[in-house]
């Protein structure tokens, strides 16, 4: 294959970065072995790119944090001072202003009312059901409560599954969040979370799925699936999150893949360090 010098260099960079695999990698290595010019070029690139890997020795001083805290406090004060005054007009009486302040404070968090309203509705429902029980319909009521619970559960699941199909990543993150709110989670949901962790195109959605799986540490099969997923991950943030999770679960079956990652020279240093931490934490003494 005839390649230009620029294409050659590009392939060498990809080779150093560990981005070439299979036949392409073999082809580049084979052709390089035949040319001393390319070998020299490769060594030079390797030396140059290794110089980037030296850790940054300077760290920001505490002054930066102090300044930020001051900035944030100032900004909050500005909101407190200016926010309500925007609504102030000649006609506005003092009482109205305080109502507006209240409105403003609650407006962005209006969704908070939703669960409260739901709780109240549930309470009223429970009270009504309680009345029925008192009338001697205990068994029927219990059946009814179970049915309602199953219905709520099913509709929660449906909302979650539908949200997961959305194009927007924030909707899918919301969907994953639903799993955290469900009291009972069946296999279908954990399977969906695992699929999301493995295949969602957006890293933040995958991260949210990894975090949502944390509460299922009591399920050995699921833990094994997470170990298998961890072994296939290439995204540093996901790898780091899963390492923390697997340490938390004390999942010894993760030792192999963690050791492999620890020794993988193509992986970022921080990931390798975290993997080493994991190996240390899981290694049987």
């Amino acid at each position, binding site marked *: 294959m005839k390649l230009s010098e620029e294409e050659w260099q590009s392939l060498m960079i990809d080779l150093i970065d560990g981005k070439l695999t299979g036949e392409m990698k073999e082809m580049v290595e084979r052709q390089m072995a035949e040319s001393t010019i390319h070998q020299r070029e490769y060594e030079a690139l390797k030396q140059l790119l290794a110089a980037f890997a030296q850790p*940054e020795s300077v760290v920001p001083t505490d002054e930066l944090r102090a300044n930020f805290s001051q900035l*944030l406090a100032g900004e909050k004060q500005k909101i407190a001072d200016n926010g309500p005054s925007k609504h102030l007009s000649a006609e506005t009486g003092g009482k109205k202003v305080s109502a507006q302040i209240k409105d403003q404070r609650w407006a962005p968090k209006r969704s908070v009312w939703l669960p409260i309203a739901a709780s109240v509705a549930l309470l009223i429902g429970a009270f009504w059901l309680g009345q029925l029980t008192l009338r001697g319909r205990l068994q029927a009521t219990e059946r009814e409560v179970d049915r309602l619970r199953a219905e709520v559960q099913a509709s929660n699941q449906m909302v979650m599954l539908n949200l997961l199909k959305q194009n*927007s990543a*924030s909707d899918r993150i919301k969907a994953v969040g639903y799993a955290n709110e469900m009291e009972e989670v069946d296999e279908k949901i954990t399977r969906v979370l695992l699929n999301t962790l493995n295949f969602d195109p957006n890293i933040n959605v995958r991260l949210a799925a990894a975090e949502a799986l944390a509460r299922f540490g009591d399920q050995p099969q699921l833990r094994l699936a997470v170990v298998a997923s961890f072994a296939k991950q290439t995204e540093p943030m996901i790898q780091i999150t899963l390492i923390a999770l697997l340490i938390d679960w004390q999942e010894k079956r993760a030792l192999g893949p963690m050791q492999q990652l620890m020794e993988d020279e193509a992986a970022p240093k921080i990931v390798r360090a975290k993997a080493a931490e994991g190996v240390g934490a899981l290694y049987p003494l």
Partner: protein
Amino acid sequence: MIPTDEEAMWAVGSGDLDQAGLLFDRYHVGLYHFFHRMIQDRELSKDLTQNVFVRLLRYRGSYQPGQPFRAWIYRVARNVANDHFEKQKSSFVGLKPIHERVAAPDGAEQAEQVVTLQLALQQLPQSDRDLLVMSRYQELKYEEIAQIMGLSLSAVKVRVHRAIKKLKELYFKHEN
């Protein structure tokens, strides 16, 4: 659940400014290094990092939900750096000479490599330097850099590789 960067920034945009603290914790060191690697000046890097967070708070309303936050904040950082360089050009206030700014770390060979690399980087055009700082130091993906710079993925890859080629020539000229 710990909020993602995107959730935290969306909350900041909706008025929950405390979430900005979380984003400061996650990003201030990376941004400080980003500036320091570009300009090799600690004091200035601190000021510019601070400016990024000033803009984060000032333009919090412009953040769209679901927008990848890392690319968003680095685009802000790049604008902060560009504005600084523009101002510098018009006011004729230059940086100290490069050899006074590049701080050598301990360890003779490593120190030599770092200084040589910094000297070579400083001689690159700013757009090339930005690309290399983002891709090689900050380890941003080509996809993220494409979002930050408004380029296609393949254009980013070609530019990064060309910048490496230029850098390689400068690096070995300094080394010899």
